[in-house]
């Protein structure tokens, strides 16, 4: 089977990429388009570092063929970072020292972003639940949970911020 052109919306802009069948969305975003926040920790669905949002839902980009997002909205950490400054959730991670090496951080922020969009005031349990598929080797998780709690308190959910 030959390559084909896939069109999708990345951070609000339409992009067109040429992909071989079964090329993952992770590979397309990181290697073809240079969106390096989309990490490649395990390439087998085990770590969450490649998490992006597809139509607002967190998805492991390493498991998703790029063709499957044709016509859909894809959001990476780059897409939520304002030109000048930080998304409130990014700021909350900074404030809580919610990272060390930073490798897990984009994935953690993307799942948290989706969580807060759906549920602006999550309980601690709901935060743990949202983060359950994402591995961090450095922080011991508590600072990450604290960051999400901080963002929720500061009203990092949609409506509460400029878009």
């Amino acid at each position, binding site marked *: 089977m030959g390559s084909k052109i896939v069109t999708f919306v990345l951070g609000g802009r339409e992009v067109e990429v040429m992909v071989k069948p079964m090329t993952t969305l992770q590979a397309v975003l990181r290697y073809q388009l240079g969106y390096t926040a989309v990490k490649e*920790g*395990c390439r*087998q*669905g*085990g*770590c969450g570092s490649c998490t992006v949002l597809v139509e607002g839902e967190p998805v492991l980009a390493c498991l998703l063929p790029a063709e499957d997002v044709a016509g859909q909205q894809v959001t990476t950490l780059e897409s939520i970072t304002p030109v000048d400054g930080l998304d409130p959730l990014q700021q909350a991670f900074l404030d809580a*020292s919610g*990272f*060390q*090496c*930073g*490798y897990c951080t984009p994935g953690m922020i993307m799942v948290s972003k989706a969580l807060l969009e759906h549920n602006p005031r999550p309980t601690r349990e709901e*935060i*743990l*639940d949202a*983060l*359950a598929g*994402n*591995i961090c*080797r*450095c*922080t*011991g*998780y*508590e*600072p*990450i*949970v604290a960051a999400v709690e901080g963002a929720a308190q500061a009203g990092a959910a949609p409506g509460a911020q400029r878009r």
Partner: protein
Amino acid sequence: MVKLRGTGLSAVNYPTGMNLGGDPSQALIHATTSGSFVVSLSATDLGQGLRTVIGQIAAEALGVGMDDVVIDTADTDTGPHDMGTFASRATHRVGNAVIAAAQEAREALLDVAEDELEAARSDLEFDGQGNILVRGAPDRSMKIADIAAAAQFKYGRTIAGRGVYMKPRSPVDPETGAMDPDSTEAHACTVAEVAVDTDTGEVTVLSIRSAYEVGRQINPALVKGQIVGGAWMGMSHALYETTQPYYPDPAYSPKDFSEYLMPGAYEMPKIECVVLEYPSSNGPYGVKGVGEMTANSPIPAIVNAIYHATGVRIDELPVTPELILRGLDARARAARLAETSTTPDS
């Protein structure tokens, strides 16, 4: 199902650096034309925050703000020599090297400042805010950035400094085996509480509470990050991480990263710490290393807590449910044996 609870304790003395054939770190500092300072190193920031603490140390030692310092690390092809980031040595070794390099760079700044400010060297002082002042003449001061620019454009000089910290090789006394392996030692005491499920052999860590004595803290938030992250890592070593099968069938062994077991956000216990500071005599500003030790002290504390809870003494890691169930079985068997062998006599 019974859940047995136990509490365990551990105490650790942890060396900063190790006895290699000599253990050097080097640092080079130079001013750019814009007046910022580049600190070149080969030591690596693994995420623990070396660039941040070295940035703080360099800024302090140069007398400039942290924004005026660029830390350039980890290119061993082009950087000055360093043994590497391990043995909790980097802040200690690199920090000392950076202070030495900053001192040389300050002398180079003073050489230029003497001319620019037309003052005797002994009258010049750094204000720690990015300026050099003439003592007693508040109106005669110059920004360090301007001095650096003048050095390069007007005088054709460099503003640079070299620094090295070298822990010399310590020979082993052939009679006693004595040697001097490290530079200083940090200390920790950890108390862990666990609950052990006697049906499944599963261990839940309820809390990890520690006291750490780490010398002077350059950055308390990063120290806390090491301690909290280290507690997770220690717990992961103690109970989870292995490539062996959990049960005799190799089919249950992890075959790749997605099956390699580690605790996640859900498994994290309550983690608390207090930090004590008894500055070292030879670290930069009294630093000791606080890296690896944070992952070490939780392990014996957890294993001791399991012993306290179950009476099962385990001496291999990780403590899998299988090891605990086997230990409980062995204890039950021994108890039955003791009973049958004592019954006829009584």
